[in-house]
C-alpha cells in the first residue's frame, strides 16, 4: 500500500533508509526542520541546514522515487536563544520560494518557557504574513499536556490562523481530543518508547475516527523507527479495518492537508 510520511527527519538517516522506505510503499514525505541534537551556533549554520533540506534531501529521495517536501523554522529547543531565533526567522523568507517548502515548522514548545512562547508567536506571525501552513511540535513526556494547551491557546487567540491549515503533531491520548475539537489536524507519532506505539495509534483511530488524523514515524537520530507507518498499516489490517480506512489515514489525509500548499504535487494512485 502506498503511503505518505507527514513527519520524518531524513537528514539524520542514511540512504539505506530511503531504499527501505521506498520498498515498503513510501511515495512522499514531509520533513520539518528540527533540533540536530546539539545547539547550532549561528544563523549561517541554519542557512546551510535549510540548503540541505531544500536541495540535497529532495535529490536523495528522488533516487528512490520518493517526493521530499520540507518545512522551515528554528525549533522549540533552540528558541530559548531569542536573538539567534530572530536572526533565523528573518532569514527564512530566503527559502520560502523553494519548490519543496510547504510551510513553517516544526514550531512549538519544549519546556514551555516564556522565550519559547515568544519565538513561537513570531513564527506564527511569519507564517501568516507569508500565507504558509504551519506544522506544530508538541513537547515530550511530562511537558506535553501543558505545552499542547499553551500552543492551542496561542493559535486560537490569533484570528488570522486557520486551524484547517495547521497540523499539530505528536498528539497522544491526553491531547488528541482538544486538538481535533478545536478544528486542527492531528498527527500521531509512533516511537518505541517516548511517544505512542502503532497499537495505541490504532486505538486512537478507533476512538476518534479518521477525520483530520494522520500518523508519522518522525524518524530521527534518536530511538525511532522510520518504518512505523507500515507497522501501523499491518496493525490496522490485523484488527480487520478496511483498506479504505487505512488509506484514508496514511495516504489521503496527508495529501488533503498538504495540497493546501501550492507546492504540493498531486500523487496519482
Amino acid at each position, binding site marked *: 500500500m502506498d503511503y505518505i510520511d507527514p513527519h520524518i527527519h531524513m537528514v539524520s538517516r542514511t540512504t539505506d533508509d530511503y531504499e527501505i522506505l521506498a520498498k515498503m510503499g513510501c511515495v512522499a514525505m514531509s520533513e520539518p526542520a528540527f533540533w540536530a541534537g546539539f545547539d547550532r551556533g549561528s544563523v549561517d549554520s541554519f542557512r546551510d541546514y535549510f540548503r540541505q533540506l531544500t536541495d540535497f534531501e529532495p535529490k536523495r529521495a528522488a533516487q528512490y522515487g520518493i517526493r521530499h517536501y520540507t518545512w522551515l523554522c528554528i525549533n522549540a529547543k533552540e528558541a530559548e536563544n531569542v536573538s539567534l531565533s530572530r536572526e533565523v526567522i528573518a532569514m527564512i523568507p530566503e527559502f520560502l520560494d523553494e519548490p519543496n517548502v510547504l510551510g513553517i515548522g516544526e514550531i512549538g514548545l519544549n519546556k514551555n518557557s516564556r522565550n519559547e512562547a515568544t519565538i513561537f508567536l513570531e513564527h506564527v506571525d511569519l507564517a501568516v504574513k507569508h500565507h504558509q501552513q504551519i506544522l506544530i511540535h508538541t513537547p515530550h513526556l511530562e511537558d506535553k499536556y501543558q505545552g499542547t494547551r499553551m500552543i492551542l491557546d496561542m493559535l486560537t487567540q490569533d484570528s488570522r490562523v486557520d486551524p484547517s491549515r495547521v497540523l499539530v503533531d505528536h498528539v*497522544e491520548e*491526553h491531547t488528541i481530543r482538544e486538538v481535533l475539537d478545536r478544528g486542527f489536524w492531528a498527527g500521531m507519532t509512533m516511537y518505541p518508547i517516548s511517544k505512542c506505539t502503532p497499537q*495505541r495509534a490504532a*486505538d486512537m483511530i478507533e476512538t476518534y475516527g479518521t477525520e483530520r488524523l494522520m500518523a508519522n514515524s518522525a524518524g530521527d537520530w534518536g530511538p525511532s523507527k522510520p518504518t512505523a507507518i507500515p507497522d501501523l498499516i499491518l496493525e490496522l489490517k490485523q484488527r480487520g479495518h478496511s483498506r479504505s480506512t487505512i488509506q484514508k489515514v496514511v495516504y489521503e489525509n496527508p495529501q488533503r492537508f498538504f495540497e493546501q500548499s501550492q507546492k504540493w504535487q498531486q500523487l496519482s494512485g
Partner: protein
Amino acid sequence: MARTPKQILQSDYLIARAKVIEVAAMLDRIDRAVDSTIQVDNPSDVSKTESIYQDIAYQKIQAAIAILMDSDKEKTRRIQELLSRAYVADWMEQFKLPTN
C-alpha cells in the same frame, strides 16, 4: 469489523504480560538496591534508602498502578495526565506575552 473483548485479550495478552513484568522487575530492582545499600552502610540508618519510596517519580508509578486497578474507564488518558505537568489557565498573563 470490531474485535470482541475476547479477541483483544487473546491477541494482546502476551504483550501486556511482558510489560507488567517489566514494571514489576523495575520495582524489584529498586527494592534490591535498597536492601544492598542498607547492608553496606549502617543497617540502622534506613532513612537514606527508604526515601526512594517517597520520591515523586516512585509515587507516580504507584499512582499509575492504582489507576490500572480501578474500575473507571480511559485509563491511558488518566495515566498520561497523572504523569504530566499541570496546565495553568492564566499562563499568558504570567508570561506577559503580546497578542497578535
